[in-house]
């Protein structure tokens, strides 16, 4: 009976010990994924910003410019792309909708971002775009990979349609969460006019005819929770100018937008709460369960060895093997 219990304990010990690395290195990369149907919205504000009045073509100070950013997982498209990509893919249809202090639209930029559900690597497929222009992203956008490292990453800038390094600048504590701080500077770059302009009748083509060009620079800052790779907070020091051409009435340049864009307080709180709860789930797979199972496995192994040792009393003869009776010869 004691030997039987020892064998059961041994089987359980091997079971739990084997589960420990299997969970961490086999199950985690396959189970930790961005859900294909995720829907997320975010509100950012730029207080005391500068905004171009397209009626007078004069820059003016405004109390607030609001950016509403929505990301919506497109499940049907992700399933289509998965058939050829051979891996789990997430398709995010996004919209950055900028609202002036009067509640009117300043700009709206739709985009489609396609990426690997676990590694966050971009996946290239038909439909990948920014404001209707096909793009081939390199690097990450919006989110970092699970288990973010203390290093620079390549980050895609949707305005300039370029990928540039976003630098790791240190570890900080943001509202009780240990985060990695990243910063990217996009120098003054000539960018396209949005397809949808804030004034009816004005199109990017009609503006292009005047010879006026649009330029943009930004300093992008992200505070990223490293286990989930999710930014818990973000800021941007964003400037846009119109330069040259006949549209500016002889002026060299005029500010189209300048502002320090920050996440709205209620969205910061909800993001921090969400990231904290997702972090706990990931910790289960990367730490709590693997270490717990390993400890349990070793404990059960020790117990089974103990039972085995007690089962073999000193001086006991070795158990004889059962053997078939030999035939007796007459």
């Amino acid at each position: 009976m004691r030997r039987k219990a020892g064998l059961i304990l041994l089987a359980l010990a091997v079971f739990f010990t084997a589960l420990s690395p299997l969970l961490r290195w086999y199950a985690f990369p396959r189970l930790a994924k961005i859900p294909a149907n995720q829907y997320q919205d975010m509100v950012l504000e730029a207080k005391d910003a500068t905004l171009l009045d397209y009626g007078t073509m004069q820059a003016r100070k405004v109390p607030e410019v609001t950016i509403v950013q929505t990301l919506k997982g497109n499940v049907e498209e992700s399933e289509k792309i998965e058939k050829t990509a051979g891996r789990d893919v997430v398709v995010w249809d996004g919209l950055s909708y900028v609202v002036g202090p009067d509640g009117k639209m300043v700009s709206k930029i739709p985009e489609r971002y396609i990426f690997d559900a676990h590694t966050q690597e971009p996946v290239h497929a038909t439909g990948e775009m920014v404001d209707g222009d096909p793009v081939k992203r390199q690097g990450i956008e919006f989110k970092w990979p699970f288990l973010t490292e203390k290093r620079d990453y390549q980050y895609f800038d949707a305005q300039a349609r370029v990928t540039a390094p976003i630098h790791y600048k240190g570890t900080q504590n943001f509202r009780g969460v240990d985060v990695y701080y990243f910063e990217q500077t996009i120098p003054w770059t000539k960018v396209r006019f949005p397809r949808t302009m804030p004034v009816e009748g004005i199109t990017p083509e009609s503006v292009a005819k005047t010879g006026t060009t649009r330029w943009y620079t930004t300093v992008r800052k992200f505070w990223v929770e490293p286990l989930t790779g999710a930014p818990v907070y973000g800021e941007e020091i964003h400037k846009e100018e119109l330069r040259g051409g006949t549209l500016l009435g002889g002026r060299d340049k005029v500010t189209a937008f300048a502002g320090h864009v920050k996440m709205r307080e209620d969205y910061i709180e909800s993001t921090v709460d969400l990231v904290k709860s997702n972090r706990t789930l990931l910790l289960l797979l990367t730490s709590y369960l693997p270490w717990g199972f390993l400890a349990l496995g070793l404990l059960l192994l020790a117990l089974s060895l103990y039972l085995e040792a007690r089962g073999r009393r000193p001086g006991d003869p070795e158990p004889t093997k059962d053997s078939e009776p030999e035939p007796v010869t007459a």
Partner: protein
Amino acid sequence: MRALIAAATGLAVALALVFTITALGSPAGETSPKPLLTTVPAHP
């Protein structure tokens, strides 16, 4: 010999469990019916 069989059984069950869980994965669900926002939401 019996110890070896017990250990192999434990390992096989662990492998089977992890392979099954990862093969099942999680359902993709459906695309959210909520729209891409063009108004400022009052709260998250």
